């Protein structure tokens, strides 16, 4: 692969699509997200089927603290915006700006994760454990799957930042950054649904 020979200023406008490998990666990742949509769709369907089955546990109306969740939502939505800035910087070949925006994205993602972990601890404390009811199991599985995706994304983007420092922006690294960006958006979109279906609808009862 002659990717390393490219200098930043010789990169094409969309470096992620410059090679066949890059085009394959981007298309493959879009398809992968199609599969992920089915995965979350099934989890949502399961949650919707079981959300009223609270057995001896508390219902969502008593449990959910919308203020924490709203803050988490704010962090994640903002991180989606910053990841757009990173991708735009990628297209401008502005490595420094791209890395900075990626770091902001990771920090916001970490903030979201911290809030989610805090929230889960609170719920468990109130007796809303994983094995309490069908509602609790499906709640933790759906929201937890999303949380795991965020955690994976945070680690992934961190590794990519390190790679950018070492290898620079090339036709090999560009598709990785781009793909991580669409992954991050996807996670965000899923969260919008979680916020609506789990929390808002759950708070209404």
């Amino acid at each position, binding site marked *: *692969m002659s*990717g390393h020979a490219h200098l930043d200023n010789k990169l094409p406008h969309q470096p992620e699509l410059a090679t*066949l490998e890059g*085009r*394959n990666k981007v*298309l*493959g990742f879009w*398809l*992968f997200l*199609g*599969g*992920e949509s*089915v*995965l979350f769709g*099934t*989890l949502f*369907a*399961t949650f919707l*089927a*079981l959300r009223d*089955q*609270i*057995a001896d546990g508390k219902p969502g109306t008593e449990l959910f603290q919308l203020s924490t969740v709203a803050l988490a939502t704010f962090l994640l939505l903002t991180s989606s915006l910053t990841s757009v800035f990173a991708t735009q910087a990628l297209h401008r070949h502005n490595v420094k700006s791209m890395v900075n925006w990626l770091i902001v994205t990771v920090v916001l993602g970490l903030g979201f994760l911290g809030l989610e972990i805090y929230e889960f601890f609170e719920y468990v404390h109130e007796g809303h454990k*994983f*094995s*309490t*009811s*069908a*509602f*609790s*199991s*499906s709640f933790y*599985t759906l929201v937890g799957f999303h949380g795991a995706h965020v955690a994976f994304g945070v680690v*992934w983007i961190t*590794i*990519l930042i*390190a*790679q950018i420092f070492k*290898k620079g922006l090339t036709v*090999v690294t560009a598709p*990785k950054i781009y793909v991580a960006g669409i992954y991050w958006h996807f996670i965000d979109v899923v969260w919008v649904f979680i916020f609506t279906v789990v929390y808002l609808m759950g708070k209404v009862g």
Partner: protein
Amino acid sequence: MAHSVKRYHGLMDWLTTVDHKKIGILYLLAGGLFFLIGGIEAILIRIQLMQPKLDFVSAETFNELITMHGTTMIFLAVMPIIFALMNAIIPLQIGARDVAFPFLNALGFWTFFFGGVLLNLSWVIGGAPDAGWTSYMPLASNTYSNTHGVDFYSIGLQIAGIGTLLGGINFLVTIINMRAPGMSFMRMPMFTWAVFITSALILFAFPAITVGLVLLTFDRLFGANFFEVANGGNAVLWEHIFWIFGHPEVYILIVPAFGIISEVISTFSRKRLFGYSSMVFATILIGFLGFMVWAHHMFTAGLGPVANALFSIATMLIAVPTGIKIFNWLFTLWGGQLTFNTSSLFAIGFIPTFVMGGVTGVMLASAPADFQYHDSYFVVAHFHYVIVGGLVLGLFSGLHYWWPKMFGRLLNETLGRLTFWTFFIGFHLTFFVQHFLGLMGMPRRVFTYLPNQGFDTLNLISSIGAFLMGVGTIIFLLNITITARKPKDAANDPWGDGRTLEWTIPSPAPEHNFTQIPLVRGLDAYWKEKVAGNKEMPASEPIGPIHMPSASIIPFLMSVGLFIAGFGFMFAKDEFASSFVGMLFNNYIVAIIGLLITFGGMFCRSVFDDHGWHIEPEDLEDKGVKA
């Protein structure tokens, strides 16, 4: 740079290969092995049912046998053999040098393999799963299935399922992005189309079962309540999730067979496929409708009349595109010059057999009548007609057809015909009578039956047929063994009537497939050139260095990691004689080690770039491999 390539040899070559042709052979070997295991299970089942009240195996063992037979055959035998043909042929058919993601391709194979090994190890550690391949709750819950059997099922299939999903994405991207210049979508060979649609079905169906299996695992290992009725769970929910995957799965299996049959019939009758565009359209429609009919597996579950009526109608609709395909095949044969050989015999045997499986499908679609057929031997007969009479006959046809392209040797024709006749007759003996057993009141999945119910003779016939199918399979194995000792002397186009790009290159294909990527000038590209009097395909590029991906052991190691993690989770709550082993398992240390290996592999793959290596034009001349 190009000449300093690290090459592995022997076993290490196979463990590290990312070459789609070698991965295809690996899929064939592993799938074949599991096919034999599943076949032995089938024979044991038929021995037990040969006569009423036999005591050949116990009731518990029988339930393990039926569960493992179904699971093994579907997930570990026929799907991998489909993947074997996909890998071996698709890049050649579209004029590509490899698949889009060679590394993921290897990873997909190894996860499937280790998932399958894990599942089958249940026979020796802790008991095999016994709740049926459908694993309905609550029977599959801890309360009613208290061995580790169902854990082996859920974790083994999750690991194997990752491989399938990766394969699906890989082939979608390969087919979309890597077709040779000139090969538009409507010039793709029918097998490529079929694999394209199957891959799309895999992409949208497998995540559903992954979620289902995760939920099942959570219920069994971590005390979740998805299907635990006492805490608000819902047992019928499992049926929905399972069949939302399960029905598309049936089409994932049969659609590649449609593709194979289309190629074989067209080649051996020396005619282009009749109604190519309506074939494509029909296959897409079948794939699409496949997602809207899952509840026909649940007509008796009590979904209510509106759902039953709608799902009845949706299911019947599938008969229309399927019928289009059947008649298109018949009219491809019409006016042709049909050569009879093993491959075409299997393809011709497929047509009436599959039609019979299809019409019983329409019968089953009628919900009120399904109240009688459901879970009886009628259903057993129906799906074996579709899966064995459809898919397995198709696979045999495809294997005989493409064997020279995979291995450079033609299979023995006499033994091949013997395989066909024993297998074909054995198949119909086994399963035709089962329609009547079901209609006469015999439920499926029974480990025995009482005498005087009118079941005795038909069951005996069915068992004899199963033995005959076993004989057919043994003859096939014999054929492979004998052929393997012959010299590799197959021509580029050993059938003489090849129509597609795979027949333009040597058998077996060289490592880089095409020295020059060909230019495609129509449907049945090679045939078109032959008719125009050209011996070779026109090239779309000058001869130059060919970039190749590097071999890697990481896919193997990542899969081993998942395998270890699977055991770690499964036995985390068990008691062990050795306190050290107990400590390792009970604190999830084994599970964590496994996951670390897998994620470590991912990390290495991401951080250390694979620059690949090049085959230089001089090397191509040296080996004398010219396109």
